[in-house]
């Protein structure tokens, strides 16, 4: 529990750094850093239960996508404002380095393993955002349809 709180705070501050570098609108900084930290915690929890960083990335990206869409709806702003700082914690930066390190140590099996994992994690983030985006598109289309139906009848 202690580590979870510690990781949450660390992710919060890391996302705050990204929010300042990418200049998230000032009023939305608290929301966007909470989205980012929640994504990271979801990743850690799913890593604990499924023991696979790929599934962790997928679930984390799904959560970031969902929270961002909701936040975009509530705060009447572009969803990108929340997604970009939120997703950055999940991007496998450390795996890139460990792939390189395995290559330098002539450990080709290790390199193939971590390299593939890096690519799969990036793919999982993409899939998570894709699934969430498709879902929101469907929901939005359904809402618009009901609205137009109401107007007609």
């Amino acid at each position, binding site marked *: 529990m202690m580590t979870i709180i510690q990781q949450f705070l660390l992710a919060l501050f890391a996302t705050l750094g990204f929010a300042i570098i990418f200049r998230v609108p000032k009023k939305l900084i608290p929301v966007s850093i909470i989205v980012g930290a929640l994504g990271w915690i979801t990743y850690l929890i799913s890593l604990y239960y499924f023991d696979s960083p790929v599934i962790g990335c997928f679930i984390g990206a799904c959560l970031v996508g969902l929270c961002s869409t909701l936040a975009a709806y509530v705060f009447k702003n572009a969803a990108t404002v929340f997604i970009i700082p939120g997703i950055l914690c999940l991007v496998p930066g*450390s795996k890139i380095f460990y792939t390189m390190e395995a290559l330098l140590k002539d450990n080709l099996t290790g390199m193939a393993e971590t390299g593939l994992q890096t690519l799969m994690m990036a793919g999982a983030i993409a899939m998570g955002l894709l699934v969430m985006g498709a879902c929101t598109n469907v929901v939005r289309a359904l809402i618009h349809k009901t609205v137009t139906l109401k107007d007609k009848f």
Partner: protein
Amino acid sequence: MDQKKQKETLILAAKAGKIMMKSGAEIYRVEDTIERICLACGVDHVNVFAMPTGIFVSINNEDQDDTVTYIKRIKSSETDLTKISKVNHFSREFTTTDMTIEEGLKILDEIDNGWKYPFWMRAIAASLVTGCFSVIFGGGALDFCVAFIVGACCYLLSRFLEKYEINFFIRGFICTAFAAACALVAAASIPGVAYAHIITGCIMLFVPGVAITNSIRDFLSGDMLSGLARMTEAVLIGISLAAGAGVVIKLWAILGGVVL
């Protein structure tokens, strides 16, 4: 609609699109904004084709014989989410109220040259990112302090290279190479510092998160070309980051330094 107004409309719409595209907006948002602004100015037919490197707008009025086309080339880009959000609000305002084109241009200029965080604040933000990530990936308090300083230096170096318009691939390479060199020196001189955690922290600062996110959102809205372009950018940045750190670590080992 006379020719002068047609031209002014195009300039306004392309300017709005350019600001958005430079700040890292998705393709459909840029195309949508340009289309809305043109239609609000009273143009009959608009067609927009936007890419990360350029915008093409073509408008046609029924009372005129010619179709007018405007091409805007986009060179550098810097992610700035405030600008995206502001231009978004501006386009909504412009289409719902009867704002003139001159007023619109003035507002866009204000958005483009708006207030930015002071440089020292951005440098501290960058060091916050590297420091926190070095701890997240398993470092200790000492690693945090070293990564904090190295992160700020890396950010300064990256901005310096950006000023001389060095492309993103080489920039990523040089920045991580610098970070790796600093981390190795720190690990050799201060006992208890692990170079791996510092380098991973610094890599996170340059990781292509924006490119991945935008490429997926472009694919989702059917802009395959831009999606592919941004996906390639993400892969290239990832490779350059790994190469930068790798080359320095290898050189360090060859020159006789001890890699812990």
